[in-house]
């Protein structure tokens, strides 16, 4: 492995660790592969070299500047090696390093590997150690503009906001992202997170404002599940639940206008199921059938299953006979009873 230091992937004349005089005192530690290795990775010569020394350093628990530099090389080759990250944190502590420099490093690492658990965890630990979240929201704004649905970035953002109470302008931030893409479900989820932690959801008047916000968004794109789900989420916190009058009116008007979004129809079914009154039950049953057959055909089984609940409600609350279109539905019900009996 040492015969060639002209690794083609490294034009800036990479020198192997085994050729570096300052590392002469360390014996690299090879990965045990056994006599007949399984699913063995054909590591590059550089990878073998760097990790041979990395393993040795970790095993010897060497605390040194050169060990820290070695972790940088190792993580460049594989930023998902959590052992190296953990060891790097040990070195940062033991060597009393200026953690602000480490931020420059982690900024770059996150930019290069934004969908990696370890880089974000490292950042979280740094923020904790410094007890300084001042760079986080700007950094995250950048990261989220590159990928507005990056799960790790949102996790970090929620952690920072909650830990350091930075809810200040977060509602506006989610609003601007929703304006960019009203189907960005991560932004809706963040909005809910903020509403929950800032007391909006325990105050019916403020929740109603959010309900209006959701309904406006629904009117823009009635097939957008994100805004419907947000609306349902808000209603969990209202005394009347799905039966909140403004929402029932809104749905009825939308239905009367001829809209047949599957999310609207689903909402009407669930409203009827939650209502003690039976006035909408027959329609709900019919909607289940229409969803199953036409508007949401892929979920036919699910709608047949929900139809069973509607039927149960009808037969338990009403003594009147309901005939007509029932034959077909009853057959569907038996089928789904089977379905549920695993």
């Amino acid at each position: 492995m040492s015969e060639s230091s002209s690794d083609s992937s490294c034009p800036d004349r990479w020198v192997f660790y085994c050729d570096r005089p300052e590392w002469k005192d360390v014996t690299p530690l090879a990965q045990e592969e056994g006599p007949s290795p399984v699913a063995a990775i054909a590591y590059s010569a550089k990878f073998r070299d760097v990790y041979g020394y990395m393993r040795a350093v970790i095993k010897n628990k060497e605390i040194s500047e050169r060990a820290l530099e070695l972790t940088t090389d190792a993580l460049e080759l594989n930023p998902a090696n959590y052992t190296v990250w953990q060891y790097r944190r040990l070195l940062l502590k033991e060597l009393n390093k200026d953690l602000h420099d480490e931020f420059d490093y982690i900024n770059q690492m996150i930019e290069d590997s934004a969908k990696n658990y370890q880089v974000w965890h490292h950042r979280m630990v740094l923020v904790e150690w410094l007890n300084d979240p001042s760079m986080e929201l700007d950094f995250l704004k950048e990261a989220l503009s590159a990928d507005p649905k990056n799960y790790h970035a949102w996790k970090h953002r929620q952690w920072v906001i909650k830990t350091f109470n930075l809810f200040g302008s977060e509602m506006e931030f989610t609003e601007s992202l929703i304006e960019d893409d009203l189907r960005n479900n991560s932004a809706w989820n963040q909005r809910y997170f903020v509403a929950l932690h800032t007391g909006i959801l325990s105050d019916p008047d403020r929740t109603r404002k959010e309900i209006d916000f959701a309904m406006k968004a629904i009117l823009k794109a009635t097939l957008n599940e994100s805004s419907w789900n947000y609306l349902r989420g808000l209603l969990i916190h209202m005394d009347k639940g799905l039966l909140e009058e403004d929402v029932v009116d809104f749905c009825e008007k939308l239905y009367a206008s001829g809209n047949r979004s599957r999310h609207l129809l689903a909402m009407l079914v669930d409203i009827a199921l939650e209502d003690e009154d039976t006035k909408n039950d027959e329609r709900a049953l019919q909607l289940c059938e229409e969803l199953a057959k036409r508007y949401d055909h892929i979920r036919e089984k699910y709608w047949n299953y929900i139809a069973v609940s509607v039927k149960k409600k009808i037969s338990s609350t009403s003594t009147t006979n309901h005939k007509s279109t029932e034959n077909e539905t009853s057959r569907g019900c038996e089928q789904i009873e089977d379905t549920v009996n695993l």
Partner: protein
Amino acid sequence: MEADSGSQETERSVGRERHDNEGIPTASSFAQEQVEEHVAQIFKSYELWSGLDTEVEFPLLRTAEHRKFLSASLSGLPESFGKLDSSQTWLCYWILHSLALLDSRIDDRLRDAVVVKLTNSIDKESGGYGGGPYQYGHLAPTYAAINSLVIIGSPTVWSSVDREGLKKFLYKVRVGDGSFVVHEGGESDIRAVYCAVVVAKILNIDSADLFDGTVEWIVRCQTYEGGFGGDPGQEAHGGYSFCAIAALYLLNALHMCDLKALMRWTVNRQMPFEGGFQGRTNKLVDSCYSFWQGATVVIAQLGLSGRESLELDTGKKDWIFNKELLQEYVLMCCQDEYGGFMDKPHVRRDPYHTCYALSGLSLAQSCREHIVGDVHKNAVKQIHPAFNLPLKKLTEAMDFFYGSTTK
């Protein structure tokens, strides 16, 4: 719907519905429409083929090619897999589980070599398995190692597992509030909880207080949408929803979460055009969610039925998601012609997607009448949805571990 389509669509695509951006195009709708375009081209070519007079029944599971791809992966992986150097036990599990689903025999020589590899990955200091030799113990590779040992194992192999060491490891990564970190000093999320629960359950090292508070912590991860996030507050996500509901099932606590909301959210992740599942609301289809979301439906359905156990190998099984369209997505859109599965068309195949596409396929083939394509050629082995292990092997292993005691 069939009537008003009026196009040349054959029976196969009847009922598939394209995305409608309602005149408001956004980044999400643009990406969605692009994927649908790719998928539509594939469906169209299948329609042409199905008009040919061949003896092959489409779509076909390319079993021989998959076996070839998987055995080639066992004999060696290219340099680019250096990025997965900390997922070596995972690579074993993905490949071995895929082979098991395809009913491939794993011979003694291979079995011994796998045992050596996994044993080399044990971190003696923590007691857990690392992602590879000389790596710290981590819950995810530990889960993958134990699952691999179940698949290839025999009583001799199983008796060599250091259950005491693993039990100590589970206590080391346990956080006071019932959650777990993936390794000492590492991040915490619901993956860690799931992996810990599975390892404890398979090996029968689940002691009284190990999971104190865990059910309560998991339930806090259920979101207003109905699915679960990786942590309390995070967006509902297929992988994390699976971890949550499977862990609740294994802890006998399915009823502690809102199963109806979970079911609604999960079935809504199946894409009306592609037939596969997406991971989150308004995201793109991906074959790995065939398992994560499919298994979530199966387990949630069990909870809603009020039954205690899955009784997987008896009686009729039918799930509330659309099994036929899911199989069509996996078989038509995600198979590489040289073997292996990919996330979606125009993306490279890999062992991870191969494992979870096949696992999802297995769930969707809940009974023989529901197998899409040739029943004999396309059938894969049945799995347990909470562990994602072949039923037969899991039963054998658990019989072994529950027959002996920790000491």
